[in-house]
């Protein structure tokens, strides 16, 4: 039954819970951010995106779409946006590339940081990474086959 709130145990529960959860989150986020910076300075993404580029043919995307796609996938939309806008301005990627990058990334972005936060709470890393990746690939493929994409394919962005 709803009685007057017992403040002692409440404050204790909140204090402990906050300290515990923030400590775990910090101990996962800080090493992950260091690893991401190392990957950036070693330009790992450049090499990886070249290797992956031919695979994008499955979606009818050009190899140039590879780098912006991977940037958003690993580093997130806010960081990836700069790279994506840059690629669009330079005219190297088509409307279709841009559209499909957006479809893929809206389902699956910032996989390292966002995943880490949920691992801190006890979620299964394999399930949440693989689940998201598989769904993003499937949706992007299905959308790439639609008439809508074929109709607008000639457009430049």
């Amino acid at each position: 039954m709803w009685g007057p709130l017992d403040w002692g145990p409440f404050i204790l529960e909140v204090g402990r819970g906050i300290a515990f959860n923030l400590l775990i989150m910090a101990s996962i986020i800080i090493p992950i951010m260091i690893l991401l910076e190392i990957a950036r300075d070693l330009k790992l993404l450049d090499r990886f995106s070249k290797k992956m580029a031919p695979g994008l043919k499955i979606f009818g995307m050009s190899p140039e779409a590879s780098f912006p796609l991977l940037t958003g996938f690993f580093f997130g939309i806010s960081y990836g946006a700069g790279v994506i806008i840059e690629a669009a301005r330079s005219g190297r990627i088509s409307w279709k590339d841009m559209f499909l990058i957006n479809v893929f990334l809206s389902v699956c972005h910032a996989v390292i940081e966002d995943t880490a936060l949920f691992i801190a709470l006890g979620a299964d890393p394999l399930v949440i990474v693989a689940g998201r990746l598989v769904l993003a690939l499937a949706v992007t493929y299905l959308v790439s086959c639609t008439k809508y994409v074929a109709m607008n394919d000639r457009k430049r962005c």
Partner: protein
Amino acid sequence: MLTGQTIRRGFLKGVSVTWELAKVVVPVYVLVTFLKHTPALKYVAGIFEPAMRLVGLPGEASIAVVLGMLANLYAALGAIASLNLSPKETTIIALMLLICHSLPMETAVAQRAGVSGALMALIRLALSVMAGIFLNIAL
């Protein structure tokens, strides 16, 4: 080039993300823990119980789902931390929210990039529910 600066920058980014996280997680955690001690959370949970059972989550988790989809992941994290979900439930809500979160903000970004925001929100919501139903059966 890899230098000490790389490590330093990564460390500072990690601290800044943790700080941004704390600013949202702490108030939400306090609020949800408070609601747990009042009939309010039970009342809301009762309303959402039937829908949440479909994806294997308790009614209380609806508050985390709503916060994640309408506000952002950080707010959802604060609520989930307070709810003491089982590992299976945590994995389900994690995948559902990772697929579908921050809809007002992220659909605006999609819109600016020339993709229909409403359509993307709908696709993400549908995928999120499908993933939840699937994981509830598979795990």
